[in-house]
């Protein structure tokens, strides 16, 4: 089941890349497309941050992941590299669980 989802997702992502090189520019330069498409990642990434930090399954929870996200926010504000942001968050969660 995971394989099917993985492969369909890969094919969809490739189709989108190819569409950009193949579709008439007129279509992709349409004001609605140009205005809307860049908003989608902003909204989805923010929704992912929220749901993966403050929920387990269908339940809202507040646990060590919130503290880990706080540390990640500080790391981002300090312009830390990607891997440092991720590692700092993971280390925070791991350390708090040890306490």
């Amino acid at each position, binding site marked *: *089941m*995971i*394989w099917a*989802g*993985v*492969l369909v*997702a*890969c094919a*969809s*992502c*490739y189709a*989108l*890349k*190819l*569409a*950009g*090189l*193949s579709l008439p*520019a007129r279509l*992709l330069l349409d*004001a*609605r*497309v140009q*205005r*809307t*498409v*860049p*908003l*989608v990642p*902003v*909204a*989805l*990434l*923010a*929704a992912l*941050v*929220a*749901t*993966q*930090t403050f*929920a*387990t*399954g*269908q339940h*809202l929870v507040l646990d*060590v*992941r919130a503290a880990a*996200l706080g540390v990640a926010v500080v790391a*981002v504000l300090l312009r830390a590299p*990607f*891997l440092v*942001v*991720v*590692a700092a*968050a*993971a280390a*925070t*969660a*791991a350390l708090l*669980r040890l306490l």
Partner: protein
Amino acid sequence: MDSARISTQARRGVVRDALGIAIASGAYAVSFGAISTAAGLSLLQTCALSVLMFTGASQFALVGIVGAGGSVWAGAATAALLGSRNALYGVRLSSILDRSGLRRLLAAHLVIDETTAMAIARESPAEGRFAFWATGAALFSLWNLGTLVGALATDLVPDPKVFGLDAAPPAAFLALLAPQLRAREPMAIALAAGVVALACLPFVPAGIPLLIVALIVALFGVLRSRA
């Protein structure tokens, strides 16, 4: 060969920048490999994502959603939605890249944030084309190598929670989001999206809040651009 028209100096500069970007992305791929295996995907599935999907945010989204107990289909839909921005890059690249033949099919796979940024910042189309392929080749290699390293390392860990790996995905999403929050409107959209996702989370299956958020933001974008 049009690459002959580029000065050796320009070519060296491009290769140096491409390697810099590829090394940074390779490190980021290590975290992808680790998060993916920790989320329950196999080593082969993890590597397949980096080879075949090859667009970071979408890959993180798919494994993040699966890891949080969502269905792989919700993950696949979110990955595709996040990949929609790559279609817009194609428009800017079409004047630089060949628009026909087999080479375009291969080029399409490499159309991502980094290769686009490197290609469109050049003085001539020939230089842009060279930058696109150099960045694409370097990034693809190190992205997949990094993924394998991260996946192998996590495969050896019996319980990823001990290393706080379950707290890693939100940090990864935040790091991907942060550069896009420089203006007031994206900031407002991000906050609203987070609140809406949490508000509908208790009432729908895992992963679905993301699709609801995508639908709302798409409607907002279309209505806004009409006004």
